[in-house]
């Protein structure tokens, strides 16, 4: 009705392509990257309602995601150094007063396409497509039940992620931000009859909301300071104005940080991610390892100009990243559930990324995001393949020597490949990206963060240890496995399986080829994505190989990052690419003399030192792991017993195994008090406000009425007395008034 003409015109505009007449033809179709996943999501919903019992939803989703990937690939060539804004249609947009600055809000469905966008979208859509393909087989036992729901969720996720990354303003980013939260919620809670899954989904959403709160407030604050929430205008506004020292401007990065820490599972908001492993494994791979959790990194990278002017905020980011990396690594060392270990490693690796951002290397952080996306997806997907094959078994104590089990050889070796990458074995892609971050930490202008370099190295060793703890235990050694308690596949949502990694005694390990259980080997739809992702993981190091071998400084990732807001105002990249110092604008009093090679670590050039130390840490970790988890597995248990035996060391084991009680701490410090307060408030509302005050006041007239009851005693003289008394009183009163008035 009212809106029909307006809506129609905007739809037409959409069909005609972007309104920017100068845009390249590819840009016309940029919207497809959002639209295709959305369409497939809607189609999945329709499939669900039409009760389609085939793999059609998977086909639709894969096609749509592939289409989105292709769109991004096309865009890749079209976007130059200058960002492009494509308006799809108007969303929240109106002005008041004279419509000048601060007299209007404009947050439209715009796409802001620069190199960073493309870079992020490439691996998001690429991995999305592959993982969807993987999921089409992984979830096949749910065809006709939750299959459409799964792919619907994946589609919605990709749509939201595209909004988040490509959105032209912070409100669009917020839309995507919440949208991926919704998708995450729905997919974690995929097995919705399982109380743990539902609880995990809820936890993820709520913890993320805490972060979103920061983001929302930051958004308001940005508008208040700069009068716009659109990137393009915002950069202009920031450029035009000197760094403000008002608290409002200073608070922005801190609030943004809160949002980023929520979404990217950093201290203190990381607790949701391990629980999120209740979701189907492809979801863990896609959302909770490769893409969504990097949104926080993206946010800070995107908003880098607001961060670099605030050294304290930068240091905070670095510290939170470094400490999260350490904490998560220690927990990861003591877990037995394969997916949870990878979850903690994800948190730990995200910590690296934030460390990188905090020390100013948005390139290093982005690079690590990129490499991490591949190898972590690979690790999760192989874990999923194992889980799929062994009826949900994930306990590393109950799986051994899988590389010798028929049908699992490829999976096993790919997993080991992933382990090398995660451990940042020398000359793997992750080695270079991690190197980039640590070097920057050691050489950062802010002296306060140098110690984080050392922490990073320690974490590198720990990472190598726990990574290969899984690798050696599960894929090598004697062939020994027992199935999980899932019936084959997830045929019934209602089954009540407590897949507790700690619960069942390890003595059961000998069930080996147990009666009728046959591992279910993965077929092509699982193998192909695995191989492709492995290839991707290897190729992710290509820019660095070129640098290393050819001394070719043109690093593709760096180019992508450099030509975006993530590089605007970034402090000089301290190391890695020596040619870019001049390119980085010198803001916030960057001291060129201080940057780069000036820094020595252990008397060496930072680059060399970190490379050597990192390699050393990695190899040390692997060797320890080799001894404890392959050569002499009894030693690991013995070590654990020894540590448990001494009061002085017992806390280390217990603490790490029980995740340093952080969940319990939150429970006791936040949830429980809140619950108590809520109950008190409910009681106040019910008893004091309603039953007490409201009902009390309501009963007041009747109560007063009862006071007067004796006056209506029924005897006529009683009434006469009251009446005559009343008359006398009134008469006396009147005379009194009259006397007072007369005199």
């Amino acid at each position, binding site marked *: 009705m009212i809106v029909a003409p307006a809506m129609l015109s905007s739809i037409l505009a959409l069909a005609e392509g972007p309104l920017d007449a100068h845009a390249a033809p590819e840009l016309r179709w940029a919207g497809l990257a959002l639209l295709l996943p959305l369409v497939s999501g809607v189609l999945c919903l329709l499939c669900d309602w039409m009760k389609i019992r085939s793999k059609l939803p998977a086909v639709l989703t894969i096609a749509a995601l592939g289409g989105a990937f292709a769109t991004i690939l096309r865009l890749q060539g079209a976007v130059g150094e200058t960002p492009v804004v494509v308006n799809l249609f108007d969303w929240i947009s109106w002005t008041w007063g004279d419509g000048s600055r601060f007299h209007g809000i404009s947050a439209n469905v715009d796409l802001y396409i620069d190199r960073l966008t493309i870079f992020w979208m490439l691996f998001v859509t690429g991995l999305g497509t592959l993982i969807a393909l993987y999921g089409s087989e992984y979830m096949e036992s749910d065809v006709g039940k939750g299959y459409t729901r799964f792919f619907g969720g994946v589609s919605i996720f990709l749509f939201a992620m595209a909004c988040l990354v490509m959105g032209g303003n912070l409100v669009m980013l917020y839309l995507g931000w919440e949208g991926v939260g919704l998708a995450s919620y729905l997919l974690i809670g995929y097995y919705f009859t399982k109380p743990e899954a539902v609880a995990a989904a809820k936890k993820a959403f709520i913890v993320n909301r805490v972060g979103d709160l920061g983001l929302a407030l930051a958004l308001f604050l940005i508008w208040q300071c700069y009068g716009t929430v659109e990137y393009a205008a915002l950069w202009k506004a920031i450029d035009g104005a000197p760094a403000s020292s008002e608290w409002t401007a200073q608070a922005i990065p801190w609030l943004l940080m809160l949002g980023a820490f929520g979404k990217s599972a950093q201290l203190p908001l990381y607790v949701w991610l391990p629980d999120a492993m209740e979701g189907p494994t492809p979801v863990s791979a896609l959302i909770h390892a490769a893409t969504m959790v990097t949104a926080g990194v993206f946010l800070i990278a995107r908003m880098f100009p607001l961060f670099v002017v605030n050294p304290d905020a930068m240091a905070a980011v670095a510290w939170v990243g470094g400490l999260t990396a350490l904490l998560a690594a220690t927990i990861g060392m003591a877990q037995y559930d394969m997916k949870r270990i990878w979850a903690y490693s994800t948190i730990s690796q995200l910590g690296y990324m934030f460390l990188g951002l905090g020390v100013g290397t948005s390139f290093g952080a982005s690079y690590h995001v990129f490499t991490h996306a591949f190898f972590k997806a690979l690790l999760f997907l192989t874990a999923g393949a194992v889980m799929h094959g062994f009826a949900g078994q994930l306990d590393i104590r109950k799986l051994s020597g899988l590389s010798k089990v028929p049908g699992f050889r490829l999976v096993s070796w790919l997993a080991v490949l992933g382990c090398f990458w995660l451990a940042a074995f020398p000359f793997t892609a992750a080695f270079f990206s991690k190197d980039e971050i640590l070097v920057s930490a050691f050489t950062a202008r802010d002296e306060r963060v140098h110690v984080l370099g050392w922490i990073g190295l320690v974490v590198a060793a720990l990472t190598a240890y726990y990574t290969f703890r899984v690798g050696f235990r599960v894929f090598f050694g004697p062939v020994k496995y027992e199935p999980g308690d899932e019936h084959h596949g997830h045929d019934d949502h209602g089954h009540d399986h407590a897949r507790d990694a700690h619960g069942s005694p390890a003595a059961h390990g000998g069930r080996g080829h147990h009666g009728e259980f046959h591992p279910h080997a993965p077929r092509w739809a699982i193998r192909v994505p695995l191989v492709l992702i492995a290839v991707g993981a290897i190729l992710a190091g290509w820019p660095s190989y070129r640098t290393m071998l050819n001394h070719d400084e043109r690093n593709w990732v760096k180019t992508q990052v450099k030509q975006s807001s993530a590089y605007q105002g970034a402090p000089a990249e301290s190391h890695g690419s020596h040619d870019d110092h001049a390119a980085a604008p010198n803001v916030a009093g960057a001291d060129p003399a201080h940057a780069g090679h000036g820094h020595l670590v252990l008397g060496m050039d930072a680059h060399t030192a970190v490379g050597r130390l990192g390699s050393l840490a990695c190899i040390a970790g692997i060797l320890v792991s080799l001894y404890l988890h392959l050569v002499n597995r009894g030693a690991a248990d013995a070590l654990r017993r020894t540590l448990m035996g001494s009061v002085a060391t017992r806390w280390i084991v217990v603490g790490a195994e029980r995740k340093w009680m952080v969940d319990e701490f939150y429970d006791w410090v936040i949830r429980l008090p809140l619950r108590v307060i809520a109950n008190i408030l409910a009681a106040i509302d019910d008893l004091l406000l309603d039953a007490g005050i409201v009902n009390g006041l309501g009963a007041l007239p009747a109560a007063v009425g009862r006071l007067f009851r004796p006056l*209506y005693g*029924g*005897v006529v*003289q009683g009434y006469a007395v009251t009446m005559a008394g009343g008359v006398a009183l009134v008469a006396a009163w009147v005379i009194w008034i009259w006397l007072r008035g007369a005199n």
Partner: protein
Amino acid sequence: MISIDQQLPPGDPLVVLGLLASAILFAVGIVGFLSRRNMITMFLCTELMFQGAGLAMISYGRQHMDLSGQVFVIFILTVAAAEAALALGLVVLLYRRKETLSAEAWKELAES
């Protein structure tokens, strides 16, 4: 019609005494009404009050040299007579029912 500007000076003994008597009559009526339970006595007390008011009318009439007060008294007497008839009928009716003249016997209607 008597012109209203003819007025006795204040303090005319007959007026004062009349008013005093009327007030006493009225007060006695009220006190009697409140204190006695016999319905016939109570009715007589209301008659006293009426007559007290009547006496006041006459006294004021004398003060103002105006006859309408006296005219009013005649009407009051008439009305009082009508009331008396009514009252006696009612009392008889009530007495037949309860065999008592006490007003206190009738207290069925009251706040429960």
